[in-house]
Protein backbone atom coordinates (compact mmCIF):
# COMPACT_ATOMS: atom_id res chain seq x y z
CA UNK A 1 0.00 0.00 0.00
CA UNK A 2 2.74 2.40 1.00
CA UNK A 3 4.63 1.60 -2.16
CA UNK A 4 1.59 2.31 -4.25
CA UNK A 5 1.13 5.64 -2.51
CA UNK A 6 4.77 6.53 -3.09
CA UNK A 7 4.44 5.61 -6.75
CA UNK A 8 1.39 7.83 -7.11
CA UNK A 9 3.17 10.74 -5.44
CA UNK A 10 6.23 10.36 -7.62
CA UNK A 11 4.19 10.21 -10.82
CA UNK A 12 2.21 13.26 -9.72
CA UNK A 13 5.49 15.09 -9.13
CA UNK A 14 6.86 14.07 -12.50
CA UNK A 15 3.67 15.15 -14.23
CA UNK A 16 3.76 18.44 -12.40
CA UNK A 17 7.34 19.04 -13.43
CA UNK A 18 6.75 18.23 -17.06
CA UNK A 19 3.72 20.48 -17.02
CA UNK A 20 5.86 23.34 -15.69
CA UNK A 21 8.53 22.59 -18.27
CA UNK A 22 5.96 22.63 -21.03
CA UNK A 23 4.48 25.94 -20.06
CA UNK A 24 7.80 27.65 -19.53
CA UNK A 25 9.08 26.57 -22.93
CA UNK A 26 5.88 27.91 -24.44
CA UNK A 27 6.49 31.17 -22.58
CA UNK A 28 10.02 31.51 -23.80
CA UNK A 29 9.18 30.75 -27.41
CA UNK A 30 6.45 33.37 -27.51
CA UNK A 31 8.66 36.45 -27.07
CA UNK A 32 11.16 35.00 -29.50
CA UNK A 33 8.52 34.79 -32.20
CA UNK A 34 7.34 38.25 -31.35
CA UNK A 35 10.86 39.52 -31.63
CA UNK A 36 11.40 38.06 -35.08
CA UNK A 37 8.08 39.50 -36.14
CA UNK A 38 9.20 42.88 -34.86
CA UNK A 39 12.54 42.84 -36.58
CA UNK A 40 10.94 41.73 -39.81
CA UNK A 41 8.48 44.56 -39.55
CA UNK A 42 11.15 47.06 -38.61
CA UNK A 43 13.64 46.21 -41.31
CA UNK A 44 11.79 47.20 -44.47
CA UNK A 45 10.53 50.25 -42.65
CA UNK A 46 14.03 51.31 -41.74
CA UNK A 47 15.27 50.67 -45.23
CA UNK A 48 12.47 52.63 -46.85
CA UNK A 49 12.26 55.64 -44.59
CA UNK A 50 15.66 56.25 -43.21
CA UNK A 51 14.88 59.78 -42.20
CA UNK A 52 11.60 58.99 -40.44
CA UNK A 53 12.64 55.77 -38.82
CA UNK A 54 10.55 53.21 -36.98
CA UNK A 55 10.59 53.15 -33.18
CA UNK A 56 12.51 50.06 -32.18
CA UNK A 57 15.04 49.02 -29.64
CA UNK A 58 18.47 48.42 -31.06
CA UNK A 59 20.61 46.27 -28.83
CA UNK A 60 24.29 46.89 -29.33
CA UNK A 61 26.59 44.04 -28.33
CA UNK A 62 29.90 45.27 -26.92
CA UNK A 63 32.95 44.03 -25.11
CA UNK A 64 32.71 46.26 -22.02
CA UNK A 65 36.48 46.01 -21.48
CA UNK A 66 37.70 47.34 -24.80
CA UNK A 67 38.79 50.96 -24.48
CA UNK A 68 38.67 53.29 -26.30
CA UNK A 69 35.96 51.65 -28.43
CA UNK A 70 33.70 50.45 -25.65
CA UNK A 71 34.24 50.63 -21.91
CA UNK A 72 32.67 51.76 -18.68
CA UNK A 73 33.25 55.42 -17.80
CA UNK A 74 33.84 56.89 -14.34
CA UNK A 75 30.11 57.07 -13.69
CA UNK A 76 29.59 53.42 -14.54
CA UNK A 77 27.92 54.04 -17.90
CA UNK A 78 29.09 52.39 -21.08
CA UNK A 79 30.86 54.72 -23.44
CA UNK A 80 33.62 54.73 -26.04
CA UNK A 81 33.95 55.60 -29.69
CA UNK A 82 31.73 52.79 -30.96
CA UNK A 83 29.10 53.38 -28.29
CA UNK A 84 28.90 57.11 -29.07
CA UNK A 85 28.66 56.50 -32.82
CA UNK A 86 25.94 53.91 -32.25
CA UNK A 87 24.06 56.37 -30.04
CA UNK A 88 24.27 58.99 -32.79
CA UNK A 89 23.04 56.42 -35.34
CA UNK A 90 20.10 55.48 -33.13
CA UNK A 91 19.24 59.14 -32.50
CA UNK A 92 19.19 59.73 -36.23
CA UNK A 93 17.00 56.70 -36.94
CA UNK A 94 14.74 57.32 -33.96
CA UNK A 95 15.67 54.04 -32.32
CA UNK A 96 16.11 53.41 -28.67
CA UNK A 97 19.60 52.13 -27.96
CA UNK A 98 20.45 49.46 -25.42
CA UNK A 99 23.95 48.28 -24.66
CA UNK A 100 24.56 44.63 -23.97
CA UNK A 101 27.92 43.38 -22.71
CA UNK A 102 28.73 40.13 -24.51
CA UNK A 103 31.11 37.42 -23.45
CA UNK A 104 33.67 38.15 -26.17
CA UNK A 105 34.58 34.57 -26.99
CA UNK A 106 30.87 33.73 -27.35
CA UNK A 107 29.83 36.92 -29.11
CA UNK A 108 28.51 35.35 -32.31
CA UNK A 109 26.53 32.73 -30.43
CA UNK A 110 24.96 35.49 -28.35
CA UNK A 111 24.21 37.43 -31.53
CA UNK A 112 22.49 34.38 -33.03
CA UNK A 113 20.54 33.86 -29.83
CA UNK A 114 19.09 37.35 -30.20
CA UNK A 115 20.66 38.73 -27.03
CA UNK A 116 21.89 41.63 -29.13
CA UNK A 117 21.19 42.91 -32.66
CA UNK A 118 24.78 43.49 -33.65
CA UNK A 119 28.32 43.10 -32.40
CA UNK A 120 29.90 46.52 -32.62
CA UNK A 121 32.95 46.86 -30.45
CA UNK A 122 36.22 47.14 -32.29
CA UNK A 123 35.50 43.75 -33.82
CA UNK A 124 38.03 42.42 -36.29
CA UNK A 125 36.48 41.18 -39.53
CA UNK A 126 37.44 37.55 -40.05
CA UNK A 127 36.83 35.56 -43.23
CA UNK A 128 35.31 32.81 -41.14
CA UNK A 129 32.53 35.18 -40.04
CA UNK A 130 31.49 35.87 -43.64
CA UNK A 131 31.79 32.18 -44.46
CA UNK A 132 29.44 31.39 -41.57
CA UNK A 133 26.86 33.72 -43.10
CA UNK A 134 27.07 36.75 -40.81
CA UNK A 135 26.47 40.11 -42.42
CA UNK A 136 29.44 42.35 -41.87
CA UNK A 137 29.38 46.10 -42.38
CA UNK A 138 31.93 48.06 -44.39
CA UNK A 139 35.18 48.26 -42.43
CA UNK A 140 35.55 51.49 -40.47
CA UNK A 141 38.91 51.09 -38.75
CA UNK A 142 42.32 49.93 -39.83
CA UNK A 143 44.25 48.11 -37.17
CA UNK A 144 47.50 46.33 -36.50
CA UNK A 145 48.64 44.12 -33.67
CA UNK A 146 51.45 45.40 -31.49
CA UNK A 147 53.53 44.10 -28.63
CA UNK A 148 53.25 45.99 -25.36
CA UNK A 149 56.35 45.61 -23.18
CA UNK A 150 57.86 47.22 -20.12
CA UNK A 151 60.11 50.17 -20.89
CA UNK A 152 62.98 48.87 -18.75
CA UNK A 153 62.82 45.35 -20.25
CA UNK A 154 65.18 46.24 -23.08
CA UNK A 155 62.96 44.45 -25.60
CA UNK A 156 62.82 46.33 -28.89
CA UNK A 157 61.54 43.94 -31.54
CA UNK A 158 59.56 40.75 -31.89
CA UNK A 159 62.84 38.90 -32.43
CA UNK A 160 63.92 39.89 -28.90
CA UNK A 161 60.95 37.95 -27.55
CA UNK A 162 62.38 34.55 -28.48
CA UNK A 163 62.13 32.36 -25.42
CA UNK A 164 59.90 34.86 -23.60
CA UNK A 165 56.28 34.42 -22.65
CA UNK A 166 53.56 36.50 -24.25
CA UNK A 167 49.97 37.10 -23.12
CA UNK A 168 47.02 37.46 -25.48
CA UNK A 169 43.29 37.82 -24.91
CA UNK A 170 41.10 34.87 -25.79
CA UNK A 171 38.79 35.54 -28.71
CA UNK A 172 40.79 38.43 -30.11
CA UNK A 173 42.29 38.49 -33.56
CA UNK A 174 45.71 38.50 -31.91
CA UNK A 175 45.00 35.07 -30.53
CA UNK A 176 43.93 33.66 -33.91
CA UNK A 177 46.94 35.27 -35.57
CA UNK A 178 49.33 33.57 -33.18
CA UNK A 179 47.63 30.26 -33.97
CA UNK A 180 47.65 30.64 -37.74
CA UNK A 181 49.39 33.39 -39.72
CA UNK A 182 51.95 34.25 -37.06
CA UNK A 183 52.47 30.73 -35.82
CA UNK A 184 56.16 30.88 -36.72
CA UNK A 185 56.57 33.90 -34.46
CA UNK A 186 54.46 32.30 -31.73
CA UNK A 187 56.68 29.21 -31.83
CA UNK A 188 59.70 31.29 -30.87
CA UNK A 189 57.95 32.36 -27.64
CA UNK A 190 58.45 30.11 -24.65
CA UNK A 191 54.73 30.29 -23.92
CA UNK A 192 51.56 31.98 -25.10
CA UNK A 193 49.34 32.73 -22.12
CA UNK A 194 45.66 33.17 -22.98
CA UNK A 195 43.74 35.44 -20.61
CA UNK A 196 40.03 36.14 -20.68
CA UNK A 197 40.34 39.92 -20.45
CA UNK A 198 42.86 42.63 -21.26
CA UNK A 199 43.01 43.64 -17.61
CA UNK A 200 44.40 40.20 -16.80
CA UNK A 201 46.87 40.37 -19.70
CA UNK A 202 48.17 43.71 -18.41
CA UNK A 203 48.23 42.53 -14.81
CA UNK A 204 50.33 39.55 -15.89
CA UNK A 205 52.73 41.91 -17.64
CA UNK A 206 52.86 44.35 -14.74
CA UNK A 207 53.33 41.50 -12.29
CA UNK A 208 56.20 40.08 -14.38
CA UNK A 209 54.42 36.83 -15.15
CA UNK A 210 54.75 37.49 -18.89
CA UNK A 211 57.20 39.61 -20.87
CA UNK A 212 54.84 41.11 -23.45
CA UNK A 213 51.17 41.43 -24.36
CA UNK A 214 50.10 40.92 -27.96
CA UNK A 215 47.29 43.38 -28.39
CA UNK A 216 45.39 45.66 -30.78
CA UNK A 217 47.11 49.00 -31.36
CA UNK A 218 44.32 51.27 -29.96
CA UNK A 219 44.09 49.29 -26.72
CA UNK A 220 47.86 49.48 -26.30
CA UNK A 221 47.83 53.21 -27.04
CA UNK A 222 45.16 53.94 -24.45
CA UNK A 223 46.97 51.79 -21.88
CA UNK A 224 50.30 53.50 -22.47
CA UNK A 225 48.61 56.90 -22.21
CA UNK A 226 47.31 56.05 -18.75
CA UNK A 227 50.14 54.00 -17.30
CA UNK A 228 53.79 54.82 -17.05
CA UNK A 229 56.69 52.51 -17.77
CA UNK A 230 55.28 50.72 -20.81
CA UNK A 231 56.20 50.98 -24.45
CA UNK A 232 54.85 49.68 -27.73
CA UNK A 233 56.66 47.62 -30.35
CA UNK A 234 54.77 48.26 -33.60
CA UNK A 235 55.88 46.09 -36.50
CA UNK A 236 52.57 46.32 -38.37
CA UNK A 237 51.88 42.71 -37.57
CA UNK A 238 48.58 41.25 -38.70
CA UNK A 239 46.98 44.19 -40.50
CA UNK A 240 43.22 43.95 -40.19
CA UNK A 241 39.98 45.93 -40.26
CA UNK A 242 37.13 46.49 -37.82
CA UNK A 243 33.48 46.10 -38.77
CA UNK A 244 30.02 45.53 -37.32
CA UNK A 245 28.50 42.04 -37.37
CA UNK A 246 24.79 41.39 -37.90
CA UNK A 247 22.83 38.14 -38.02
CA UNK A 248 22.44 36.58 -41.46
CA UNK A 249 19.19 37.92 -42.86
CA UNK A 250 19.61 41.32 -41.24
CA UNK A 251 20.97 42.94 -44.40
CA UNK A 252 18.33 45.71 -44.21
CA UNK A 253 19.38 46.49 -40.64
CA UNK A 254 23.01 46.65 -41.72
CA UNK A 255 22.10 48.96 -44.62
CA UNK A 256 20.13 51.23 -42.30
CA UNK A 257 23.06 51.53 -39.88
CA UNK A 258 25.60 52.03 -42.66
CA UNK A 259 23.37 54.69 -44.20
CA UNK A 260 23.09 56.56 -40.93
CA UNK A 261 26.85 56.35 -40.37
CA UNK A 262 27.44 57.78 -43.86
CA UNK A 263 25.19 60.72 -42.96
CA UNK A 264 27.09 61.26 -39.71
CA UNK A 265 30.33 61.33 -41.68
CA UNK A 266 28.83 63.79 -44.17
CA UNK A 267 27.53 66.24 -41.59
CA UNK A 268 30.69 66.18 -39.47
CA UNK A 269 29.21 64.52 -36.36
CA UNK A 270 31.46 61.53 -36.95
CA UNK A 271 34.59 63.68 -36.95
CA UNK A 272 33.38 65.50 -33.83
CA UNK A 273 33.00 62.25 -31.90
CA UNK A 274 36.31 60.95 -33.27
CA UNK A 275 38.06 64.09 -32.02
CA UNK A 276 37.37 62.93 -28.46
CA UNK A 277 39.47 59.83 -29.14
CA UNK A 278 42.74 61.21 -30.56
CA UNK A 279 44.53 57.84 -30.26
CA UNK A 280 42.45 56.23 -32.97
CA UNK A 281 41.66 59.08 -35.36
CA UNK A 282 44.51 58.27 -37.73
CA UNK A 283 43.21 54.78 -38.35
CA UNK A 284 39.53 55.62 -38.94
CA UNK A 285 38.84 54.65 -42.53
CA UNK A 286 35.91 57.05 -43.14
CA UNK A 287 37.94 60.08 -42.04
CA UNK A 288 41.06 59.21 -44.00
CA UNK A 289 39.54 58.29 -47.37
Amino acid at each position, binding site marked *: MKKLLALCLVSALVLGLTACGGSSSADSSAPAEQETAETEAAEPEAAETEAGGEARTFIMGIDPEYPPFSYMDDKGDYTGFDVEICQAVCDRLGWEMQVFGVNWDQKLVQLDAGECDCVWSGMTILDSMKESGYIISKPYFYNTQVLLVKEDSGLASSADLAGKSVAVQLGTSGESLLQDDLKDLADTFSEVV*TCDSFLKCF*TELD*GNAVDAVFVDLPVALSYVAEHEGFTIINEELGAEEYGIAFRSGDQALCDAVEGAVAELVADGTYAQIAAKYPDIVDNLIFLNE
Partner: protein
Amino acid sequence: MTFTAMVLKMSEGLGRTCAIFFLTLLFSLPLGMCIALLRMSKNRVIAGVTRFVISVLRGTPLMLQLLAVTYGPYYLFGFNVSRNKLIPVVIAFAINYAAYFAEIYRGGIESISKGQYEAAEVLGYTRPQTFMRIILPQVMKRIMPSVTNEVVTLVKDTSMAFTVSYQEMFTIGKQIANSQTSFLPFVVAGVFYFVFNAIVDYVMGHIEKRLDYYD
Protein backbone atom coordinates in the same frame (compact mmCIF):
# COMPACT_ATOMS: atom_id res chain seq x y z
CA MET B 1 41.34 21.49 -37.94
CA THR B 2 40.36 17.84 -38.13
CA PHE B 3 38.41 16.20 -35.35
CA THR B 4 41.40 14.05 -34.37
CA ALA B 5 43.68 17.08 -34.20
CA MET B 6 41.12 18.80 -31.99
CA VAL B 7 40.87 15.86 -29.59
CA LEU B 8 44.66 15.52 -29.47
CA LYS B 9 45.13 19.21 -28.75
CA MET B 10 42.57 19.07 -25.96
CA SER B 11 44.13 15.94 -24.44
CA GLU B 12 47.31 17.99 -23.99
CA GLY B 13 45.36 20.10 -21.53
CA LEU B 14 43.93 17.02 -19.85
CA GLY B 15 47.24 16.45 -18.06
CA ARG B 16 46.93 19.88 -16.48
CA THR B 17 43.31 19.21 -15.56
CA CYS B 18 44.42 15.99 -13.84
CA ALA B 19 47.22 17.88 -12.06
CA ILE B 20 44.69 20.27 -10.53
CA PHE B 21 42.41 17.38 -9.61
CA PHE B 22 44.94 15.12 -7.90
CA LEU B 23 46.95 17.85 -6.17
CA THR B 24 43.76 19.44 -4.84
CA LEU B 25 42.61 16.13 -3.36
CA LEU B 26 46.07 15.45 -1.97
CA PHE B 27 46.10 18.70 0.00
CA SER B 28 42.43 19.33 0.71
CA LEU B 29 41.52 15.95 2.23
CA PRO B 30 44.01 16.20 5.15
CA LEU B 31 43.59 19.98 5.44
CA GLY B 32 39.83 19.48 5.70
CA MET B 33 40.37 17.18 8.69
CA CYS B 34 42.50 19.82 10.44
CA ILE B 35 39.83 22.45 9.84
CA ALA B 36 37.10 20.08 11.05
CA LEU B 37 39.01 19.43 14.30
CA LEU B 38 39.56 23.17 14.84
CA ARG B 39 35.89 23.78 14.12
CA MET B 40 34.92 21.27 16.84
CA SER B 41 37.47 22.64 19.30
CA LYS B 42 36.30 23.16 22.89
CA ASN B 43 37.96 26.58 22.79
CA ARG B 44 35.19 28.94 21.69
CA VAL B 45 37.54 31.45 20.04
CA ILE B 46 39.21 28.83 17.83
CA ALA B 47 35.85 27.27 16.92
CA GLY B 48 34.34 30.68 16.17
CA VAL B 49 37.22 31.86 13.99
CA THR B 50 37.24 28.58 12.09
CA ARG B 51 33.52 28.81 11.59
CA PHE B 52 33.93 32.29 10.12
CA VAL B 53 36.72 31.15 7.81
CA ILE B 54 34.60 28.26 6.56
CA SER B 55 31.66 30.54 5.93
CA VAL B 56 33.84 32.91 3.89
CA LEU B 57 35.30 30.04 1.86
CA ARG B 58 31.90 28.52 1.20
CA GLY B 59 30.12 31.83 0.79
CA THR B 60 32.28 33.38 -1.93
CA PRO B 61 32.69 32.07 -5.47
CA LEU B 62 35.68 29.84 -6.14
CA MET B 63 36.37 32.05 -9.14
CA LEU B 64 36.95 35.05 -6.85
CA GLN B 65 39.16 33.00 -4.57
CA LEU B 66 41.24 31.98 -7.58
CA LEU B 67 41.64 35.61 -8.58
CA ALA B 68 42.47 36.62 -5.00
CA VAL B 69 45.15 33.96 -4.59
CA THR B 70 46.70 34.58 -8.02
CA TYR B 71 46.59 38.37 -8.28
CA GLY B 72 46.00 39.39 -4.65
CA PRO B 73 49.68 39.32 -3.61
CA TYR B 74 50.55 41.47 -6.62
CA TYR B 75 47.87 44.11 -6.01
CA LEU B 76 48.34 44.21 -2.24
CA PHE B 77 52.11 43.86 -1.84
CA GLY B 78 53.50 44.28 -5.36
CA PHE B 79 54.77 40.68 -5.47
CA ASN B 80 55.35 39.17 -8.89
CA VAL B 81 52.48 37.20 -10.36
CA SER B 82 53.39 33.52 -10.37
CA ARG B 83 54.64 32.28 -13.73
CA ASN B 84 53.65 28.75 -12.92
CA LYS B 85 49.90 29.15 -12.53
CA LEU B 86 49.49 25.65 -11.13
CA ILE B 87 50.71 26.86 -7.72
CA PRO B 88 48.06 29.54 -7.05
CA VAL B 89 45.40 27.38 -8.70
CA VAL B 90 46.09 24.41 -6.44
CA ILE B 91 46.32 26.63 -3.35
CA ALA B 92 42.93 28.20 -4.07
CA PHE B 93 41.28 24.90 -4.93
CA ALA B 94 42.75 23.08 -1.93
CA ILE B 95 41.64 25.72 0.57
CA ASN B 96 38.18 25.97 -0.93
CA TYR B 97 37.60 22.22 -1.04
CA ALA B 98 39.09 21.75 2.43
CA ALA B 99 36.28 23.96 3.78
CA TYR B 100 33.66 21.69 2.23
CA PHE B 101 35.43 18.52 3.32
CA ALA B 102 35.74 19.93 6.85
CA GLU B 103 31.98 20.22 7.16
CA ILE B 104 31.52 16.71 5.76
CA TYR B 105 34.03 15.32 8.29
CA ARG B 106 32.33 17.23 11.11
CA GLY B 107 28.95 15.80 10.12
CA GLY B 108 30.46 12.32 10.12
CA ILE B 109 32.25 12.69 13.44
CA GLU B 110 29.25 14.17 15.21
CA SER B 111 27.05 11.35 13.95
CA ILE B 112 28.97 8.81 16.08
CA SER B 113 27.12 8.22 19.36
CA LYS B 114 28.59 9.36 22.69
CA GLY B 115 28.25 5.80 24.00
CA GLN B 116 31.16 4.68 21.87
CA TYR B 117 33.51 7.21 23.47
CA GLU B 118 32.37 6.08 26.90
CA ALA B 119 32.78 2.43 26.02
CA ALA B 120 36.27 3.11 24.68
CA GLU B 121 37.18 4.95 27.88
CA VAL B 122 36.03 2.00 29.95
CA LEU B 123 38.19 -0.26 27.82
CA GLY B 124 41.19 1.95 28.57
CA TYR B 125 41.63 3.68 25.21
CA THR B 126 43.24 7.12 25.34
CA ARG B 127 41.43 9.94 23.51
CA PRO B 128 43.69 9.92 20.41
CA GLN B 129 43.45 6.13 20.28
CA THR B 130 39.67 6.29 20.48
CA PHE B 131 39.60 8.76 17.63
CA MET B 132 42.04 6.98 15.33
CA ARG B 133 40.97 3.37 15.93
CA ILE B 134 37.28 3.55 16.70
CA ILE B 135 35.72 6.78 15.52
CA LEU B 136 37.62 7.59 12.30
CA PRO B 137 37.07 4.23 10.55
CA GLN B 138 33.32 4.55 11.06
CA VAL B 139 33.35 8.18 9.98
CA MET B 140 35.14 7.25 6.74
CA LYS B 141 32.44 4.72 5.93
CA ARG B 142 29.63 7.16 6.54
CA ILE B 143 31.00 10.13 4.67
CA MET B 144 32.04 8.35 1.48
CA PRO B 145 28.90 9.25 -0.52
CA SER B 146 29.24 12.94 0.39
CA VAL B 147 32.96 12.92 -0.40
CA THR B 148 32.25 11.31 -3.79
CA ASN B 149 29.83 14.15 -4.44
CA GLU B 150 32.53 16.74 -3.84
CA VAL B 151 35.12 14.85 -5.86
CA VAL B 152 32.78 14.67 -8.83
CA THR B 153 32.15 18.40 -8.53
CA LEU B 154 35.89 19.01 -8.36
CA VAL B 155 36.40 17.33 -11.74
CA LYS B 156 34.04 19.84 -13.32
CA ASP B 157 35.30 22.80 -11.29
CA THR B 158 38.82 22.38 -12.71
CA SER B 159 37.51 24.28 -15.75
CA MET B 160 37.46 27.38 -13.57
CA ALA B 161 41.26 27.57 -13.60
CA PHE B 162 40.65 29.32 -16.89
CA THR B 163 39.93 32.53 -14.96
CA VAL B 164 43.60 32.89 -14.13
CA SER B 165 44.83 31.87 -17.58
CA TYR B 166 45.89 28.34 -16.65
CA GLN B 167 45.81 26.43 -19.91
CA GLU B 168 43.84 23.36 -18.86
CA MET B 169 41.63 21.28 -21.11
CA PHE B 170 38.57 23.51 -21.14
CA THR B 171 40.63 26.63 -21.83
CA ILE B 172 42.17 24.95 -24.86
CA GLY B 173 38.69 23.83 -25.94
CA LYS B 174 37.49 27.41 -25.77
CA GLN B 175 40.44 28.58 -27.84
CA ILE B 176 39.75 25.99 -30.53
CA ALA B 177 36.02 26.76 -30.50
CA ASN B 178 36.89 30.36 -31.02
CA SER B 179 39.35 30.00 -33.85
CA GLN B 180 37.24 27.39 -35.67
CA THR B 181 33.88 29.09 -34.97
CA SER B 182 32.63 25.67 -33.92
CA PHE B 183 30.79 24.22 -30.95
CA LEU B 184 32.37 20.80 -31.34
CA PRO B 185 35.18 21.36 -28.78
CA PHE B 186 32.56 21.89 -26.08
CA VAL B 187 30.98 18.56 -26.94
CA VAL B 188 34.43 16.95 -26.77
CA ALA B 189 35.02 18.65 -23.40
CA GLY B 190 31.68 17.34 -22.14
CA VAL B 191 32.63 13.79 -23.12
CA PHE B 192 36.07 14.17 -21.47
CA TYR B 193 34.52 15.31 -18.19
CA PHE B 194 31.90 12.58 -18.31
CA VAL B 195 34.46 9.83 -18.88
CA PHE B 196 36.70 11.29 -16.16
CA ASN B 197 33.77 11.26 -13.74
CA ALA B 198 32.73 7.75 -14.76
CA ILE B 199 36.21 6.60 -13.68
CA VAL B 200 35.95 8.61 -10.44
CA ASP B 201 32.54 7.05 -9.83
CA TYR B 202 33.89 3.56 -10.39
CA VAL B 203 36.91 4.05 -8.12
CA MET B 204 34.90 5.68 -5.34
CA GLY B 205 32.26 2.93 -5.58
CA HIS B 206 35.04 0.38 -5.23
CA ILE B 207 36.45 2.12 -2.15
CA GLU B 208 32.99 2.33 -0.64
CA LYS B 209 32.57 -1.41 -1.13
CA ARG B 210 35.92 -2.11 0.52
CA LEU B 211 34.88 -0.03 3.51
CA ASP B 212 31.69 -2.01 3.86
CA TYR B 213 33.16 -4.33 6.48
CA TYR B 214 30.68 -4.09 9.35
CA ASP B 215 27.48 -4.94 7.51
